[in-house]
């Protein structure tokens, strides 16, 4: 048997099947250049090439595909936001997720295990009521649950009335789920490259060529490229790249950290997040507990981890699950998140013509990768921002028409 395996390994009959073609030489020009090969850039390229027939596209990344926040997130996929504009948008993403593994031909381990968000104050209970109403109205399964129902959903969680922050009620979101982030990035990359899109890894954009207020190309570490349109999808580096194109953004970059424990027997089916404790927990298919919380307290362009965050995340998690006290942590990591003042993204037009923005995704943009890719592709193909993206235009910050999702985002991602 081992010999048979060895023979199989050396046989030429079954060549290794590379997921992606090798990075080609850069052409002098493309119809569309996408900066950033995270999920968002790759999904945009996928829908541009497969739905709109625009295949002369290059996706450029200074690192490797999906190596930014796409690889670092905690995979929460949900649509229980508070503004109708956001619920409509994120629900479209959840709808795409349910069929995405089939569309991309790759196992995304997508499961709707449900998300339970905890309220510890009356004020939060009131916002949960609003979220339940808005969600129900728009068809995103979201409802209020009381302590008895919470005990049924998560029997192992402490519901101690003497706790520091006693739990008052919950928001139960049956549509909430998780998916495998790397597989999503690979799926979009494979689909896009099959359709003719070029993916250039280790190709950093160092400048944007603007002529008469129009973007006409980019400078990279591998040479200069001309193009008809540019899409910027660089997450934590949004302000740095926008500066190359000559404008500022309402974004501040903060690290966001998360961690996992060693694998445990399955005991936690839904995802739990607490608004007052600023922590959220879920158990992966491998049994590890994924624990995350809010962003770091001050701005930084770094993916270092800190002891402070580890201590506070652990302390808060133990308030909910005291029996985890002896469990070992396996890894801690961080990503650089591009935070907007209203916790909503920025998509669509920029001050530079033919230069489209997909930024401000902060701590919550993984779930939105499919809908963003689909709608950004539509935007670039038609040269016009579709209605569903209008509430997220950059201009809202100048007309003070913010889309406030802070309460529905900060602890839940």
């Amino acid at each position: 048997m081992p010999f048979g395996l060895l023979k199989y390994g050396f046989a030429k009959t079954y060549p290794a099947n590379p997921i992606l073609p090798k990075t080609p030489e850069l052409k002098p020009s493309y119809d569309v250049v996408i900066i950033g090969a995270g999920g968002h850039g790759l999904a945009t390229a996928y829908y541009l090439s497969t739905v709109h027939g625009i295949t002369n596209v290059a996706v450029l990344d200074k690192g490797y595909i999906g190596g930014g926040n796409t690889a670092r997130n905690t995979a929460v996929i949900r649509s229980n936001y508070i503004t109708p504009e956001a619920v409509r948008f994120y629900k479209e993403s959840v709808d795409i997720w349910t069929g995405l593994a089939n569309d991309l031909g790759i196992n995304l381990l997508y499961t709707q295990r449900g998300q339970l968000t905890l309220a510890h104050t009356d004020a939060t209970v009131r916002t949960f009521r609003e979220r339940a109403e808005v969600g129900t109205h728009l068809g995103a399964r979201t409802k209020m649950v009381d302590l008895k129902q919470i005990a049924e959903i998560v029997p192992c969680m402490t519901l101690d009335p003497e706790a520091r922050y006693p739990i008052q009620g919950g928001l139960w979101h049956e549509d909430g789920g998780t998916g495998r982030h790397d597989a999503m990035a690979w799926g979009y990359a494979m689909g896009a490259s099959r359709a003719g899109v070029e993916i250039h890894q280790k190709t950093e954009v160092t400048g944007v060529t603007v002529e008469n207020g129009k973007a006409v190309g980019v400078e990279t570490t591998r040479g200069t490229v001309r193009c008809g349109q540019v899409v910027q999808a660089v997450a934590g580096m949004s302000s740095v790249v926008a500066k190359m194109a000559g404008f500022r953004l309402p974004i501040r970059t903060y690290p966001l950290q998360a961690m996992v424990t060693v694998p445990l027997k399955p005991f936690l089916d839904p995802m739990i997040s607490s608004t007052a404790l600023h922590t959220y927990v879920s158990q992966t298919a491998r049994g590890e507990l994924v624990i995350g919380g809010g962003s770091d307290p001050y701005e930084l362009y770094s993916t270092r981890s800190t002891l402070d965050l580890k201590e506070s995340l652990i302390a808060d998690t133990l308030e909910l699950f005291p029996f985890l006290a002896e469990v070992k942590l396996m890894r801690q990591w961080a990503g650089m998140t591009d935070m907007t003042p209203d916790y909503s993204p920025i998509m669509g037009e920029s001050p530079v013509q033919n230069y489209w923005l997909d930024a401000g995704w902060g701590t919550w943009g993984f779930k939105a990768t499919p809908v963003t890719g689909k709608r950004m592709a539509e935007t670039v193909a038609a040269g016009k921002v579709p209605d569903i993206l209008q509430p997220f235009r950059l201009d809202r910050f100048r007309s003070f028409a913010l889309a406030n999702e802070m309460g529905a985002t900060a602890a839940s991602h």
Partner: protein
Amino acid sequence: MKLMPCPLNGPRNISEFACAGEVAELRDPADCDDTSWAEHVIFSNNTAGVVREWWFHTPTSYWFIAERNTVTDEILRTYPAGEVFKARFDYAAAKDEGGK
């Protein structure tokens, strides 16, 4: 533990402090149009590199300025705000426009 050298209290755990963002030229809301007010309050340089920031020591309510590298997280220098702001900044009396 990361230390912040506070000009008033000496080196303290950085968790005792709050950062209030880059030091910017002060704008008077009474003579500033909406666009430049948004530019001032909402938009940000978000510089990757050395910045001059407002910091606040929460237990003593003390505001000061720090020069910090936002890529390496090195704190290069901290000093009282009086080193930069020599004169008092008087806002024009806000007009009551009936909630307009």
